[in-house]
């Protein structure tokens, strides 16, 4: 494939996609997906527990295979693609960065809620000192104004981040929301800007293209859209649509389609459709990875998943507060018991 590209595509099938399969990736899946992405010309492949390094837990779900085994596998298999890991300060540790660096990981993405960038200082500096390309990743970006988000991005830039991402973790943004935020960051920062889109409002591809038009230099996708909530921006669709727009991606859309169809779809316990729960996440602005957790809690306590999600939206919970799903489910169950 051509090495010239108008933006850099970062594939997160093996990280964000992990949510959709409840973190049950095996070494063979990793091998096939990395090979497929690498062959298609994808430059960066992110892999970790869905909630980042160290995410395997009661709260977020235990990984079937220790993530570092899978990361080692990805580093071994990858030919040209750089292997990336995500880390959320408060969940993963700087020591995790040191370990994955040893395994061959070349990029660290340090993620915080969109108003809490200052908790990333320690980890951004460690990643930089290890010689890793380091990206600051602002989650749930719909919950901060363009100006507020730019201030947070400037903090991450001051810690040494090589670029900054706007993550629409709830898939709650309209194209206009994305344009204003990307515009604000591009104007404020010296480093490149990226966008990580989710599809809860069916806007992921359109929002990614809009981000590109406003000057975003990095865009995220996952194969077949595999990911939290109604899924991510599907890598193969983004590549195909970019082609139609005449935007150079440097990747082969046909090879990405083959990967999605032949390798990733057979792994999926459910297709990434925008059903009521998925749509509600985007509509209520709730963290995408709450989808399967809220489904399980709804079944366990015999309450409505939709009610759980709407209540979580009202409480303004942020990414990482999966325990509050149980809290809300118990309270709804108690309320219904009282009514009867």
């Amino acid at each position, binding site marked *: 494939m051509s090495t010239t590209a108008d933006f850099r595509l970062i594939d997160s099938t093996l990280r964000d996609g992990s949510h959709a399969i409840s973190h049950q990736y095996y070494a063979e899946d990793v091998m096939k997906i990395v090979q497929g992405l690498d062959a298609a010309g994808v430059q960066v492949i992110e892999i970790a527990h869905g909630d980042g390094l160290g995410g395997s837990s009661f709260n977020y779900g235990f990984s079937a295979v220790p993530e570092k085994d899978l990361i080692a596998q990805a580093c071994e298999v990858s030919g040209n693609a750089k292997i990336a890991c995500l880390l959320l300060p408060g969940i993963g540790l700087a020591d995790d960065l040191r370990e994955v660096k040893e395994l061959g990981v070349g990029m660290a993405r340090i993620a915080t809620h969109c108003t809490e960038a200052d908790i990333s200082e320690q980890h951004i500096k460690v990643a930089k000192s290890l010689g890793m390309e380091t990206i600051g990743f602002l989650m749930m970006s719909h*919950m901060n104004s363009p100006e507020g988000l730019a201030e947070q991005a400037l903090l991450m830039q001051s810690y040494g981040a090589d670029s900054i991402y706007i993550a629409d973790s709830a898939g709650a943004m309209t194209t206009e929301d994305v344009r204003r935020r990307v515009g604000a960051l591009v104007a404020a920062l010296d480093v490149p800007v990226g966008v990580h889109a989710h599809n809860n409002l069916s806007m992921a591809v359109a929002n990614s293209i809009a981000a590109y038009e406003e000057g975003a230099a990095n865009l995220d996708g996952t194969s077949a859209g595999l990911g939290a909530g109604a899924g991510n921006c599907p890598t193969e669709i983004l590549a195909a649509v970019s082609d139609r727009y005449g935007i150079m991606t440097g990747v082969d859309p046909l090879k990405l389609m083959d990967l999605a169809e032949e390798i990733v779809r057979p792994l999926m316990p459910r297709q990434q459709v925008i059903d009521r729960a998925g749509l509600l996440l985007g509509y209520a602005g709730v963290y995408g990875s709450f989808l399967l957790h809220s489904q399980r809690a709804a079944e366990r306590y015999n309450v409505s998943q939709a009610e759980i999600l709407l209540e979580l939206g009202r409480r303004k*919970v942020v990414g990482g507060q999966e325990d509050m799903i*149980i809290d809300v489910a118990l309270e709804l169950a108690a309320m219904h018991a009282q009514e009867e």
Partner: protein
Amino acid sequence: MALRCAIIGSGNIGTDLMIKMLRSDTLNLTALVGIDPDSDGLKRAKSLGLQAPYDGPDWVLKHAHEFDMIFDATSAYVHVRYHHKYQDAGITAIDLTPASRGPKVIAAVNMHEHLDAPNINLVTCGGQATTPMVFAVRRALNVLPYAEMVSTVASRSAGPGTRQNIDEFTKTTSMALREIGGAEHAKAIIVLNPADPPIMMRNTVFAGIPEGSDHDAVIESVYDMEKQVTSFVPGYRLKNPPVIEEGPFHTPGGVVPHRAVILLEVAGAGDYLPEYAGNLDIMTVAAMRVGEAVAKHRVTGLSEPAQL
């Protein structure tokens, strides 16, 4: 005879602790030490008639003969640099940072074990809130293969110390869940929530329950522990009844068929910061309890028997 005390660190924690300590009969607070003369904490200290120097921990070392005990409410980084200097000066240090230099003490569980230690570490706010519940589950079981805590605090009550030392928070807390709580493996997670109005501090404890365990005994033990902690932290409560959920769960301590889920909330007493800052309050209450226990122990040479 009261112990002569100074608080180092004039941020949220130090200032809240100052207000509590001025009510104590056994801890005689004479100084709040900071680094910023314009900080609200130092201004308050001055108006309350305390010494309020702004040249940091070195001031205490220069005036070492004036103090028996210091309470360090700075940051793990600062405490690591100074802890041996306090010890060399013969000053007992109660460490409110997650520096983890001295033995760890959780006020509701092992307060009487380390009253002679020159340095006592109070773990973290989340550790003070959740370790008692891990201990409660453990005492009802023969073995606790894995425990986990998730602490969510309002962004406005997480100061720069917490923010710059977030790894120390999770590492020190998970150590306390193992060493004091009795879990074989443990994990700690902290989340900051910026919602306005600010949320109350929330802590959730998950505990892996092995095959053949007495679930009723676990629940009863959790309720007993709630009473015990509430006796000195009035804002501490089970937000919802503890539940046992069915798995299986593939924990780092092995596969377990069930897990206990214990949902806690901590409201602060509102001494310095508002009610939502329960994370600060549980820490300063623990510091007071431990400081007063050390003072009593020095006078009588006896420690109260542990009430467990």
